[in-house]
């Protein structure tokens, strides 16, 4: 499989990159880790005339803290997320998620920015970022702006990014110390996209849920923020009846496609099962 011909550009600054993308127009695509785009190009499902490689933008790498936020450069790879000490201390959920993405080779190159910006409902990080209340720092020729993850996803491969804009960083408000977290992903094998997956971040106080946020992966055209399901568990001790109600509330917002991973009914049911497991594990980790 040989991709279509294209012109390769390797800018060395964000300004140069967004300038190129703006000037080259719709025929240009940014290239991050390449593990979604290059397979699409090999299948000729994508035939960009220009690739703007973001690998030379050194300031898009790394993890920093800014007040109560953790700010992750968009070109930081999943492999780097797994080994990062700041994230291990402040947002351990990201390590758990990263280890469930694809396989080791893909994680060495696959980036957080590519994962969140691609708009593929099968990607794991978007629902996690909705769960965490993250926002994306975006740059275009016209300037910079910030978009909440919960407002970013509009449809399969459709996002709030305007043509020529790139995600430069992911800003995550660090959950409170002692929070519980879990990402439960049902997949057929290593490297598969989720049949259904659920991300949970919660805090407990006196045996009851003080705050809770839930994200769901690959059970609709976009990642989902399950606001109702989280409301159901708030203030409860996560007894069996409450958890069942929460699972039902989560299933109510799912509308997965039928594919080789299962029927819509099965995948919807599995979203409820993944949420049930994620709530239990998040609770067991909360202090």
């Amino acid at each position, binding site marked *: *499989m*040989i*991709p*279509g*011909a*294209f*012109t*390769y550009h*390797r800018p060395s600054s964000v300004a140069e990159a967004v300038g190129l993308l703006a000037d080259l127009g719709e025929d240009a695509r940014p*290239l991050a880790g*390449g*593990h979604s785009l*290059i*397979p699409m*190009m*090999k299948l000729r499902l994508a035939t960009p005339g220009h*690739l703007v*490689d973001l*690998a030379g933008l050194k300031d898009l790498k790394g993890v920093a803290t800014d007040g109560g936020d953790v700010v992750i450069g968009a070109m930081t790879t999943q*492999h780097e997320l797994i080994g990062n000490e700041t994230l291990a201390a402040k947002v351990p959920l990201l390590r758990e998620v990263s280890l469930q993405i*694809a*396989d*080791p*080779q*893909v994680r*060495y*190159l696959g980036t957080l920015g590519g994962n969140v910006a691609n708009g593929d409902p099968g990607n794991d990080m978007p629902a996690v970022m909705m769960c965490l209340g993250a926002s994306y720092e975006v740059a275009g020729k016209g300037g910079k702006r910030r978009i909440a993850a919960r407002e970013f996803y509009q449809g399969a491969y459709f996002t709030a990014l305007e043509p020529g804009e790139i995600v430069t960083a992911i800003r995550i408000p660090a959950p409170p110390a002692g929070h519980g977290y879990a990402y439960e992903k049902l997949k057929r094998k*290593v*490297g598969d996209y989720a049949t259904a997956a659920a991300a949970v971040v919660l805090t407990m106080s006196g045996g009851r849920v003080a705050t809770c946020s839930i994200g769901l992966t690959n059970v609709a055209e976009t990642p989902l923020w399950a606001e109702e399901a989280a409301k159901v568990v708030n203030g409860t001790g996560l007894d069996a009846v409450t958890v069942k109600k929460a699972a039902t509330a989560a299933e109510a917002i799912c509308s997965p496609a039928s594919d080789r991973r299962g029927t819509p009914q099965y995948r919807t049911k599995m979203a409820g099962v993944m949420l049930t497991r994620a709530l239990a594990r998040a609770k067991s980790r909360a202090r």
Partner: protein
Amino acid sequence: MAKSQIALTVNGKSVEALVEPRTLLIHFLREQLNLTGPHVGCETSHCGACTVDLDGRSVKSCTMFAVQANGADIRTIEGMAAADGSLHVLQEAFREMHGLQCGFCTPGMILRAYRLLQENPKPTEDEIRMGISGNLCRCTGYQNIVKAIQYAAAKLAGVPFQEAAE
């Protein structure tokens, strides 16, 4: 389409070449450098037969353009044995533990195992299995590949290799 000039290090040797931007790294290695150890298996980023070591990372060379490897330091299976032909401990391990049958996945398996042991010299069996989860073998059922990596880890650590009880 204009070709791009790239300069990189492959198996310790400096290489300069002209490549079309769309040339995948695996095709560059096999067809321009005649390094046919890295294999084209699935061509869809799943099987890992094309795995090479690139700047301290295991990379599927079918999912990277050669131009992206400009400036990189790459190692393939051809660069594992010593100059006198003596095998790398991982190659010896795969031979001793019968870690292959048809051998098609072996170059990718060995390069992946090489990086895994660099990062984690004493992996558990579970860590080995997860560590090679991006490499498919359709012959062995993985048992002897895992043993081979355990053998290599033991030998590198200077301790005797003991097979786990079945």
